[in-house]
């Protein structure tokens, strides 16, 4: 028997992963944090927070995410991607901060994993009948081989399967049993037994009986191990983080590329004129998202449209978006509504987050208009799940026009609909909601332009600081003036280029081989941002706040231009 990384071994019993628990497991010297999310998914991860190496097995399982005890970093169910770093509440963590995950199979009442290939645990046909009784595990300070040898004195090694770590036998009572030996380390193991077709009326007595037998067996092998020279313990491998993550800090941005292929697993009417889409990975898993994040959907007709993710934390099996049918559509929403059906494949970008959610507010108020609920639902679900104070206000024509009403309804008393208000009534209602800022409150706004403009004005008049008012526009409805001509100097590539009237900075950059990520390309989403080192920007976007625009350090390259003859960008 050789203990290679390719072996599959049980590291826990199913019963070791009760509701919201984190279990500490180990295989061949490598430690795991194993936890079951509320959706049933079992996660087996390296037992170490990527930040400062603290064991995640002492962390908190909140049902959707695993929270490190040391600094509260949150890692998502299934993807193990970091979704929030509390020390920097205004930043979206780099998507690539992802913990090491291991393949998991739950079979025969045991949780199996491997340090090697994903080929699956050994099949034990005699255990496929169901009616299994998982025995209490027996840990022994002895090498796995000694446990296997001792078990073999009572049975056989399972014939053709023969991974060298399991033994099947018939108990003196006539029950078929399989024993799996988990090599915890070179000198330690755990024996896990499963009885097949056990029909004894008193399972506690059966468990006790086998526990006594296994104890006796443990005493024998531990005595044997003491007499033999102790093997060197296996050194755990701490894989280095990627070079980008070792640098402080910076978001990694990808280009406007459709790097993921997804299938429409469900399409439904999420509200009047709003189609809900559930998008599942065609192979493998989906990357980690954060509340407020969006994906670009690349449509069959060549259009690219950003849509916010509605997903709750830990809801990592698929992406959920809501698409409003826009009568003035250039073909984006129309195609999704009319042409795309369940089962169709779509190309999408990885999720990006230009609308990050702070989680350090005393109270977070969400104000949504129409389909503007989508990013705010994702945010509200995240805060609500962790018990933070929220108030969600949704403005809509009528009840039927409230999209994702099921998710909003789950917010219970924290959700208030405001139906059928005209612009004057809307402003009056916004004055009631924002008239006085509660201490430490933040507000998040998303909806049609007139409503956003009103809400921002009302908040400003009521004395809300700009830093506490967060917003996302559907689109930039301001008239973009592309009449100017100016020079851009690129500090990193030492290039000077001319942006003529009618062309954007982004286009000129791309023409010259400088790729910058982008998404909406109309100054609403914030993806194509660049840092201004010198010169005066001519802001034409609706992404930056007024204070940020005055500061003049950031520019949206898809629509904004320069007032000065020359502008220097950190590109």
């Amino acid at each position, binding site marked *: 028997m050789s203990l290679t990384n390719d072996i599959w071994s049980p590291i826990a019993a199913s019963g070791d992963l009760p509701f919201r628990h984190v279990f500490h497991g180990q295989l061949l010297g490598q430690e795991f944090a194993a936890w079951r999310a509320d959706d049933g998914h079992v996660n087996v991860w390296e037992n170490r927070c990527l930040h400062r190496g603290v064991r995640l097995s002492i962390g908190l399982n909140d049902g959707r995410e695993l929270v490190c005890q040391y600094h509260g970093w949150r890692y998502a169910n299934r993807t193990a991607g970091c979704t929030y770093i509390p020390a920097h509440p205004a930043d979206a963590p780099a998507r690539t901060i992802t913990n090491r995950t291991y393949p998991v199979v739950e079979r025969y009442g045991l949780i199996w994993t491997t340090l090697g290939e994903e080929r699956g645990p050994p099949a034990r046909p005699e255990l496929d009948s169901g009616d299994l009784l998982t025995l209490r595990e027996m840990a022994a300070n002895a090498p796995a081989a000694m446990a296997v040898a001792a078990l073999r004195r009572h049975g056989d090694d399972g014939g053709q399967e023969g991974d060298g770590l399991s033994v099947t036998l018939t108990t003196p009572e006539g029950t078929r049993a399989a024993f799996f030996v988990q090599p915890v380390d070179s000198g330690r193991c755990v024996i896990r037994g499963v009885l097949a077709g056990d029909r004894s009326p008193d399972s506690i007595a059966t468990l006790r009986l086998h526990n006594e037998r296994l104890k006796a067996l443990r005493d024998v092998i531990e005595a044997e191990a003491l007499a033999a020279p102790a093997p060197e313990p296996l050194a755990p491998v701490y894989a280095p983080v990627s070079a980008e*993550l*070792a640098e402080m800090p910076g978001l990694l941005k990808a280009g406007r590329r459709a790097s993921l292929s997804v299938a429409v697993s469900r399409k439904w009417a999420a509200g009047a004129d709003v189609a809900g889409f559930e998008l599942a990975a065609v192979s493998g898993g989906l990357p980690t998202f954060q509340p407020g994040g969006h994906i670009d959907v690349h449509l069959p007709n060549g259009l690219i449209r950003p849509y916010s993710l509605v997903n709750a934390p830990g809801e990592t099996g698929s992406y959920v978006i809501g698409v409003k049918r826009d009568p003035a559509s250039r073909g984006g929403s129309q195609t999704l509504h009319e042409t795309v059906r369940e089962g169709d494949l779509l190309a999408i970008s990885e999720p990006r987050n230009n609308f990050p959610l702070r989680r350090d507010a005393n109270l977070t108020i969400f104000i949504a208009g129409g389909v503007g609920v989508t990013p705010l639902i994702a945010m509200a679900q995240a805060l609500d799940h962790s018990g933070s104070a929220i108030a969600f206000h949704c403005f809509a024509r009528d009840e039927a026009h409230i999209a994702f009403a099921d998710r909003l309804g789950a917010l219970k008393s924290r959700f208030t609909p405001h139906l059928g208000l005209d612009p004057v009534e809307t402003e009056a209602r916004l004055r009631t909601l924002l008239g006085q800022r509660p201490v430490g409150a933040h507000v998040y706004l998303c909806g049609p332009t007139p409503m956003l403009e009103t809400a921002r004005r009302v908040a400003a008049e009521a004395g809300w600081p700009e830093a506490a008012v967060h917003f996302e526009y559907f689109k930039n409805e301001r008239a973009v003036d592309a009449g100017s001509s100016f020079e851009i100097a690129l500090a990193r590539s030492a290039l000077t280029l001319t942006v003529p009237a009618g062309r954007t900075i982004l286009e000129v950059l791309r023409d010259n081989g400088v790729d910058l990520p982008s998404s909406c390309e109309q100054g609403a989403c914030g993806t194509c941002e660049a840092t201004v080192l010198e010169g005066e920007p001519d802001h034409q976007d609706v992404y930056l706040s007024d204070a940020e625009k005055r500061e003049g350090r950031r520019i949206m390259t898809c629509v904004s231009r320069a007032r000065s003859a020359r502008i220097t960008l950190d590109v």
Partner: protein
Amino acid sequence: MSGFASPDPVTLNLWHPIAAIGEIPPGKVSATVLLDEPVNFAKVADGEPFVWRARPELRAGDAAPSTRPADALPSLVAYGYLWTSLGTPPEEIFAIPEYAEPDRRNVAAASIGVAVSAPRAIENFLDMGHFPYVHTGILGEQPHTEVKEYDVETSAERDEVLATRCRFFQPMASTVAKGGMEVEYVYRVPHPFCSVLYKSSPLDANRQDVIAIFLQPVGQERIRAHMMLSILDDQNDDTFIRRFQLMVFGQDKPILENQFPKRLPLDPRAETPIRADKSAIAYRRWLSAKGVTYGVIPAAA
């Protein structure tokens, strides 16, 4: 794994704390371990403390020798603690001028064993981000989790790491704090295994409380943490102040003992830093530059 490596020359020549002066039993030999080496110490007849490498004929609990042993190691008394060295230490130990101010309470607050390397414990001492999670309700509280921008420099002249303008919201910053407030910290690392923090005093806006941590590297992955307070507190007795410090450090201990690897990795790719970790990054670079290898995993050349 932990291995008995012979300490690097920098570590060997440092002054290391081994006991609170006030806790050395008079007339008896005491024992401890420094850099994997058993050492003994005692106050001799006139009350002066001495330290020597343990020898079999003189064991802990035996009557103290009446005069200075011939093979005594260098020793000095500073900040309420007895310090020694297994190499050739500098003339003086780093300065904490506030300790001499007459109206301060100087308390040798506690000595606690922790199964972790000294540099890991220093990083924890420099870290504010864990306050709301590890010292909940005392040094931090959710949702106030933000670590604001602060400044870090490595002073070549004083050979120490200095972090300034560190601000954090604290619900109960000290024994005399009343309610929450944003406190301002300054952190110094004047010694690879010692750090001194200055925090705004709740009693006097113009002065600062001083809290220092002096780590005794018992081995590469085991320390005794000695704490010293020099504070403005005219209300509480030493026992109360000690209990408060013990409570706070007792919250750090289980976190530190669950950190892996136990030695501090100096390779930048071993862990994932964020902006809040600026001081830790400066500390790691300073250790690398000094050539400290004890208690760390040096970066591959």
